[in-house]
């Protein structure tokens, strides 16, 4: 198991290095640079700025300086926000995104497993048809539509009660987190429901389920002890990338609900070619994704004994 984790970690470090390099190359291929946005910069000031940020050096040298700083945990200073460290931006805003993302994933996983199991039990009957219709809706409707609908619902709810019980936007209390995480998790929940359903239907035809019935076990016991645990494996597999996707992809929902998450900076930085922020957030998100995948691999090992030893 230790070797298994160690192997994953080494592969993870290589992956992150790859992400950093690819981002660096792609970023420098984009025409222009971070200083281009400033109006009427005289060549002297521009040269000074280039000197200050090291942009006048050859690209390969910049790359090695950058990788060197990154290894020391220093992502540099933002170009567009005066003297703000990229590390500070991540430290201030990532926990917000992470909290929102984690809640959304919890919600998506619990819902997906529950609804998936239910549809499998009621296969081709009314509950299955209704839930699967909603699932298609959840997969095809973009999250900003749900976000707007969610806000509308809250507005109506609050006006019905006569006071603001659940805030419509903003960040702070657990009440603020409720609707955005629900909206953010909806797509993933729909995805997991479908996955869980097909997985449950596959497992129910397995020979060991027949054995369990021949042993005289009740349907409930077979469901919980034999079917669920085996059916959940594919769901756990996709959970890792999904955690990362939700946490990093939440900026639309963050924008609609006015949540001070990292997503906004990520998008802004790309628009403004803020080299250091692009690199910092991308590498950070990349590392986060890799870590989530490793975490899921480890959890997987606990659920499926076959993985543990191989």
């Amino acid at each position, binding site marked *: 198991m230790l070797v298994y984790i160690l192997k994953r970690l080494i592969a993870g470090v290589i992956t992150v290095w790859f992400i950093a390099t690819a981002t660096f190359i792609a970023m420098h291929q984009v025409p222009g640079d971070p200083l281009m946005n400033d109006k009427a910069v005289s060549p002297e000031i521009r040269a000074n700025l280039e000197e200050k940020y090291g942009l006048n050096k050859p690209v390969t040298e910049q790359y090695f300086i950058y990788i060197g700083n990154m290894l020391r945990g220093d992502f540099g200073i933002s170009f567009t926000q005066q003297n703000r460290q990229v590390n500070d931006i991540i430290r201030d805003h990532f926990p917000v995104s992470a909290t929102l993302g984690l809640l959304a994933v919890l919600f998506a996983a619990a819902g997906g497993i529950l609804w998936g199991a239910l549809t499998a039990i009621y296969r081709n009957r009314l509950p299955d048809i209704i839930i699967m219709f909603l699932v298609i809706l959840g997969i095809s409707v973009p999250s900003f539509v749900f976000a707007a609908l969610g806000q509308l619902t809250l507005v109506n709810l609050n006006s019905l009660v006569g006071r603001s019980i659940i805030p419509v936007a903003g960040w702070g209390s657990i009440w603020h987190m409720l609707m955005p995480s629900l909206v953010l998790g909806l797509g993933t929940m729909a995805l997991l429901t479908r996955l869980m359903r097909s997985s449950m239907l596959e497992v129910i035809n397995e020979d060991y389920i027949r*054995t369990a*019935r*021949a*042993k*005289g076990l*009740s349907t409930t016991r077979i469901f919980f002890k034999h079917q669920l645990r085996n059916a959940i494996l594919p769901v756990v597999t996709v959970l890792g990338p999904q955690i990362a996707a939700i946490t990093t992809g939440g900026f639309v929902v963050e924008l609609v609900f006015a949540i001070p998450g990292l997503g906004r900076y990520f998008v802004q930085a790309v628009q403004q070619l803020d080299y250091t922020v692009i690199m910092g957030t991308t590498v950070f998100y990349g590392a986060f994704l890799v870590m989530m995948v490793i975490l899921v691999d480890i959890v997987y090992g606990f659920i499926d*004994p076959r993985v543990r030893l191989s």
Partner: protein
Amino acid sequence: MQITETPILEVNNLAVEFATHGGTVQAVRGVSFHVAKGETLAIVGESGCGKSVTVQALMGLIPIPPGKITSGEARLDGQNILNLSPRQANQFRGVKIGMIFQDPMSSLNPTMTIGDQIGETLKVHLGKSQGEAFAMAIELLEKTHIPEAAKRARQYPFEFSGGMLQRAMIAQSLACNPSVLVADEPTTALDVTIQAQILELMQELQKSENMSIVLITHDLAVVARMADRVAVMYAGQIVEAGSVDDIFYRSSHPYTLGLKIAMPSNKHDRDKQLTPIPGSPPDLFMPPAGCGYFSRCPHAMSICRAHLPGVTDMSDSQFSRCWLQEAGAPDVPELHQRKNLPEQQVTATTGPLDAG
């Protein structure tokens, strides 16, 4: 062989069909047999003849729908087990009848230890605690000669070999001391040396536990070794049944003859080609009006096509479902025919025309 005591398991006129998109398949068409205490009944036949469906129907393992038991009854110790509620059925499954399957590799839950899976039966049916059940599971594994049973009980199915898994399956099926063990092709997925070991184990446990065995197989060598009595199934019906000697030495149905001829041998006639039965079984979406074996039978007569043969008793222990057992039928030298028997040996008779 006269059956004196009441049989432990008795099946009468069982019929099972499946509704599919292509129509209704009549998988089992009126099967009757009985199993006495401590005896082994082998049900033989080729793939798709309904032998597995028959025993799965008994165990209530057929998904309903699409499956449907259209007629018949099955009595276990006198109690009909085909019309039970799921709760009632769970009181005999795994308790009075244990079952093992063809592929031990896929028949055990991959995410549960062997000991827990065996112990589960004990917990559910005998109300044992986790600790007691696990200890008993280890004893059961020892009974099936699994070395280092205590260590093995903590392992998962993927850590076992096929033969060991089938031993574990047997241990699991024996947990509640069943009176009948249903073995659905228990050695088909195993290699030959392991097959022999598993069969030996089954025979040993049958004696020590005083069980009856219903053995489903298509391997006549296994039949010869294990069975007291044999039922030969074809196209959803039992075409011939009798003691193991009746079937091998006094075959009274052309299909049984065909099976015997098709048996490969490693002793004689090495250079001889294998003689299969030509053709394929009839389409059970539309079962033939006459004998199911008609199209493949080398001795088929015109009556065989249109009319289903009735049951002819060959002796107290043997019956056949073939028009060649009719009084005026032509002689078939290799077939054991009733009309050639000395008069006094023929006792009970059911005229084929009465039954058909």
